[in-house]
Structures are given as C-alpha cells and as structure tokens.
C-alpha cells in the first residue's frame, strides 16, 4: 500500500517536472518583458608596471567602480596595482605588499602605508625605482588633485629602502615611462 502510494507520488512529481521543463522549452520569448536595466559602465584605471626595460609601462584596466573619496580611491588604485599586471608585466613589488592605510592632505600629497618588506627584500635600484614610481604614477594618474605620493612601510616613514630618498612625497617622473 505504502509502495503504491510512493510510486503514485513519484509519478505525479515526474509529470509536474516534465511539464515544467517542456513548458520552458516551448515558451516563446516574452516580448513584453522589461529589458535588462543597463548597469553603470565599467570605470577605467590606468596603472603603471615596470617592464623588462625597467621603464614603466601603462596598463588600462576596467573596474566595476572607483571610489570617489580621495583616500579610498588611493587605496583602491594601490590595491589594483599590487594585484599585479593582467598583461604579464613583472610584479611591481618584490614582496607580497599590502595596503594598510592611505591619507590625502590638502596640498596634493597622498600617503600610502604599505606592509614592510622583509629584510633584504628590496634589491637593486631598478626594483626600488620601479615599485616607488609605479605607485606614484598610478596614484597620480587616477586620483584628481593628487600631485605627489609618499610611501610608508610598516606603519612608519622611512628614509630609504637602500637607494631612493623616500622621506617626502615624490612627484611623477615622465622620463621613467616607456613611450
């Protein structure tokens, strides 16, 4: 009795499923259905990555949204840069750097606090120039009003990582960008 009841229920369920399935297949396109709401066009960020020639190479990237606020925008752009190139350029930083904080003042300076490199983690001036100026150019290119960028490491200002004077905000150097 129970088995018969079970088979009957299964049969009904199968019939319902089949009818739904067929109904879907046979349904004509609904001309009256609302067209998809157009989503906001993706925004674009311009990033700079050091290439084999150690010059900075421009890479455009579409992002779903770009924060309007100065510090949040700086942090977002740095996050995109640290995520690495999508076109095969070498990583701009020689270690897995993370953005800890960003600050924007009213003099056109942005301050980006990054995790500290491991001891001996930044070797060669090309590496240092690449990571510093990739950051400077990427932030300045995407954040209106920002003219200079200072990188902080491990929550503090550093004089140098071995070569460059990092004790103050740096302006972009166009001659370091590949043409």
């Amino acid at each position, binding site marked *: 009795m129970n088995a018969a009841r079970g088979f009957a229920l299964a049969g009904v369920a199968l019939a319902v499923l089949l009818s739904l399935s067929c109904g879907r297949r046979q349904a004509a396109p609904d001309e009256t259905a609302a067209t998809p709401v157009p989503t906001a066009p993706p925004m674009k960020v311009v990033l700079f990555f*050091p*290439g*084999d*020639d*150690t010059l900075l190479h421009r890479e455009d990237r579409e992002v779903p949204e770009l924060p*309007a*606020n*100065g*510090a*949040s925008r700086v942090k977002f752009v740095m996050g995109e840069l640290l995520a690495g190139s999508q076109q095969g350029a*070498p*990583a*701009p930083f*020689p270690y897995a750097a993370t953005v800890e*904080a*960003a*600050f*924007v*003042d*009213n*003099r056109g*300076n942005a*301050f980006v*606090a990054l995790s500290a490199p491991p001891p*001996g983690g930044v*070797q*060669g*001036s*090309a*590496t240092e*120039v*690449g990571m510093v100026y990739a950051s400077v150019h990427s932030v300045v290119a995407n954040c209106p*009003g920002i003219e200079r960028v*200072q990188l*902080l490491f491990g*929550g*503090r*200002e550093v*004089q*140098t990582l*071995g*070569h*460059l*004077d990092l*004790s*103050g905000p*740096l*302006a972009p*150097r166009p*001659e*370091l960008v590949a043409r």
Partner: protein
Amino acid sequence: MRKTLTLVLVLTVLLVARGAAAVSVATPKGPAEVFARGDLFDLVELIRLTGAEVAFAPAAGSYTAVLGAHEVQFTPGGSLAVVDGKLATLSGPVRLLEGRTVGSLSTANELLAPLGWGLQGSATTPELAPLSAGERIEVAVVRDEIGTLLVVRGTAQRPRMAATKAGVSLHFDGPIALDRPIEAVGELEGGELRDTTLTLRFLPGYEVANTYQLKDPPRFVLRVAPAQKPAPAAAQGEGRGGPLVVLDPGHGGEDQGATGPAGELEKNLTLAVARLTAGRLQAMGIATRLTREGDEGMPLHERTALANRLRADVFVSIHANASQARGARGAETYFMNADASDPQAAQAADRENASASPDTVQLILWDLAHVANLDASSRLALAVQERLNAMQETRDRGIKQAPFVVLTGATMPAALVEVGFLSNPAEAARLTSAEGQDQIAAALAEAIAAFLRPPEPVPSPPATP
C-alpha cells in the same frame, strides 16, 4: 508582564545613558560639554574649543584644523595625520562613532599639541589648556665606540643648525623649554636656551661632525668630534694641484646589496670595481679616495658628506642592479634629481656640512651651486654611460634622474652608476669575473678622466680679409 516592564525600563535607561554621553571639559573659558564614549572623545568638538577652525574636505575625506600658523589634518578611519606639512603617525586611530569623529585621550593630545593645546586630567574630568612653555627638552651626553653624542630628547622637531664660534646653535620652529640646566660633561662645556634657540658650547677644538634624527621616542643627535684641521692647500680643494675623485663602493657591512644567482654579493663587486677604478685613475695622476676601504657599513649621507668635506671634484657611487624583470640587463647612470634643488635637499646639505650657516644667503648660494652642478652632473653621467655602452655586451639604458639619497646634498658633480644586473645570470657572470670588472673599471676611469679634462679650445674662425 513584569519581565516586559523590566526590559523596557532597562532599555530606556540605556538609551538615556547613550544620549547623555557627554563629558564636561574644563577650559579657560569655563566648562564645555563634549561628546564622549568611554575614553573616546569627539575630536572635532575638542579642537574647536581651542578656537581653531575645523573644516571637512569631502574630496580628501579629511579634516583640517587651523589655529594661527599651525595646521593639522586627520582622516576618520586612519592613524596618519599631517602636522604643519609633515607626516605624523598617531598612537591610535581616528574613528567614526555614531556619526562623530572620535579618538582616545592620547590621540586627541597628538592633534592638539601642534596647535599649542593639551588635554590633561582623566577621561572623566579632562581639562583643556594651552601648553605653557612648549615642549620640554633634555640634552644628554652619550658615549659610543666612536666618540661623543649629544642627544636632544623630548621633541620631534628637527632644528636648523648653525655653527658658532664656540659650538653650535639649534633653531627650533616651536616653543621649547629646558627640562634641566645643561651641565658641562665631556666635550660639552655648557649651553643656554633663548626663545627657540638652543646654544651649545664645546671644548676648544671640537665641532659637530654630523647629525641625524631618531624616532620612538623622537631624538635629535649630534656627533661631536675633534675639529678637522684645514688640509694643506696641495691636498684639498682648488689649491690641491689636481682634481680629487671620491669613489663610493655601494653598500657594505651588513648591507649586502643585491645578491646574484650564485650568491654573488653586490657589496663585494662594488668594492672590487671601485678599487680597480681608483688604481687606474691614480695611474693617470688623478688623486682618488674611496668612501670605504673594506667590508664596512656607512650611512648614505656620510658618504656624500665625506666627499663634501674633502672638497672632491667628482663623486661617483658604484652599484650593481637587480630587478623583478627577468630580462633586465645593461648599465644605467643616474645623476641628481632636478627636484633636488628643493628645501629637502638644502636641508640635507645643511645637515652634512655641519659648519654651514643656515641663513638665507648661505642657502641661496648653496642652491645656486647645486643647480650649476646639475649640468655638470649630467655631463659626468653621460660620459660614464657612453663608456659603458661602448663595452661589448652592454646594453644602453641611458642616463636618468631620481632622488638617490647618496646624490642628494653633493656639492660637486655626482653620479650613481649601476654597472649591470646581478639578477641576470649572464650579466652576473660577467660582473663577477676579473676580466669583466677590469673592463668596467677601465670604462669608469676613462669617463671620469675625460670629464675632468679641460675642454679643448675651439679654434677661432679665420679672420676675414
């Protein structure tokens, strides 16, 4: 029913308590109510009590507080602030709480102090008052293996320094007070404070060799050393009888620099190339001095300072490169950053030339000399790069400018050369071979000699009949 009433009562009390979360702050004008939660205070309200104007800039997402000549900027959600144009790290973050911008007592004090105010007392009975006599500093005498250090504790200010007949005077930007009178200890004979100028007197024959700043806690350090006797005219400066070249082998000691694929160390390579270059220059009759003779560390500023003190005619810092880019190869030469004629560089020069007066005329003269050196430095860099380009297997990476610490503050034509990439296995093999190093040294010596050679006179056009 009874339970429900109790719950409603408790919630009402809590809501009332939250709404009344204000603390009475004693100020010179009388008590004022300021929003507070536990040990967190409304920073904007507190700062406004000082009379400062506080404005929020939505684009930057930060507040700017201005009082008199002082300005403090801070951002909700961050631990960084800009105080009078200088970056400062706060001991705790500025937070957003119930639509208020709040911070702890210590964070509040860090923002108030540059405006000349301080918050004293406890979190429940705070008192806002102007800072009376400025920061209280202390001058301590410390001895290390090299000599005597004077440590100015209690301020994060970096004073401007000027040599006096008997010692040195330190000019602070903000008000300061001496924690205790300065006593005569070792080379320090005494000192006085007048307004914002601290004058220190040394025993005869002593001077400041160099200065630097330390953090956590902030300290300003002066190294006192026997005064350098003026060198004989034949051995120094223009009357030396010949030019002096200072070569700087990059890195050294614990700072190993870049490491090659087989463990080759940049510090060894640069020393070897510098020695070979010095040998070749000396063979040409050009006096040469190395900033380090062996495997020893030396701060970057001191390398340039040595060249400045020796009144060198040329300064070349020798390095080997490394890059994340596997294909990176070739030599490149940098010269002083064009932006280096900014106040930062002037300060660096002032720091290194401890005897230099920081008055305006001196700074202008220094600036003029610095700008003039830019052109000469670019010619030096070009001469070096051209010789390295001429070497077989060396790819031209051109001359560039960047704010290298070791070039900032140099008062003579200066360049930094990256002779090749240690991160590139093929180049590392050449850079570490005796033959490769000799080739590089030959190129560097030829370039420096060519730079020092006086330009040949241009023949005047024949007179027209």
